[in-house]
């Protein structure tokens, strides 16, 4: 049985080339499992170094694409949306729902006020004119309005 030739390196030139083609010339960006062997081969093999040089050329061309740094205005706009320290837990709530909560609270206060006023006025009418039919439609209408306000603000 013939002995297989001993590869001086655990990584073949073919595999080395494939890695350079995919990950570029910076071997720190290569898969960790291949890195040490690839570095060994690069030290030993001019062909491997030639592959690295090819990859490096393409890396340099890709680096010719420049993107402007983000503007200070954008940074400030983003910072303005950041939660404040006490409000961090409410960061997920949007301003619309905060408005809705306020409207709900206000409409509740309004309805209670109207009910109270209505009750007092009704009591006065009863006191003046004696027992009669009490029209509650107006109160019910205000409840509806409060509800529609709430729904509209939600």
């Amino acid at each position, binding site marked *: 049985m013939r002995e297989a030739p001993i590869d001086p390196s655990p990584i073949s030139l073919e595999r080395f080339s494939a890695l350079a083609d995919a990950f570029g010339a910076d071997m720190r960006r290569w898969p960790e499992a291949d890195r040490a062997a690839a570095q060994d081969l690069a030290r030993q093999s001019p062909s491997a170094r030639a592959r690295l040089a090819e990859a490096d050329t393409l890396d340099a061309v890709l680096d010719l694409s420049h993107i402007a740094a983000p503007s200070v205005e*954008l940074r400030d706009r983003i910072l303005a949306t950041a939660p404040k320290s006490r409000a961090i837990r409410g960061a997920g709530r949007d301003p619309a729902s905060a408005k809705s909560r306020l409207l709900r609270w206000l409409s509740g206060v309004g309805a209670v006020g109207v009910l109270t006023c209505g009750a007092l006025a009704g009591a006065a009418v009863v006191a003046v004119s004696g027992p009669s039919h009490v029209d509650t439609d107006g109160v019910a209408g205000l409840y509806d309005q409060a509800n529609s306000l709430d729904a509209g603000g939600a």
Partner: protein
Amino acid sequence: MRSQALADPDEALLRRVAAGDPAAIQALVARKLPRICALATRMLGDATEAEDVAQEAFLRVWRQAPKWRAGEAKFDTWLHRVALNLCYDRLRRRREQPTAEPPDQTDPAVGADVEVEMMQTSNQVQAALDELPDRQRDAILLHHYQELSNIDAAAVLGVSVDALESLLARGRRALRARLQGLQS
């Protein structure tokens, strides 16, 4: 991904952001905004749209920070995934509602010829990237420009490292052919 039990370099900062520490919020924006803007600009080819993506991505950061579960994913990987998805949404809308005008390109700097030339070269590279199939372009953006590790880039794209290697190799091969003039 639970397999990434690696130390997250952003974890401590994110905890401070979640506590509403203004210095941490500024530091996080300084650290991540240029990266997210660069990714979105390269994906969309439109600086204004890229700014919108960056703003939306940070809104999601603010919402996510208090809920962040350390050890499940790297924050940077998650943020790239968010930005990439926001870009995909916009690209999809563009395909559904094509406009007559292509997105604005960044104006070349007025003045020095060398700056104009640099801008033209940059646009040439960008055009070559735009011509790649989406997955190949995304792999190159994440690995080469965003400098994500191959594990993180694969995680963002939802593919194995072997599949990432294949996407990168095919993409770079195509770019080499298209950008031959710039390589001499």
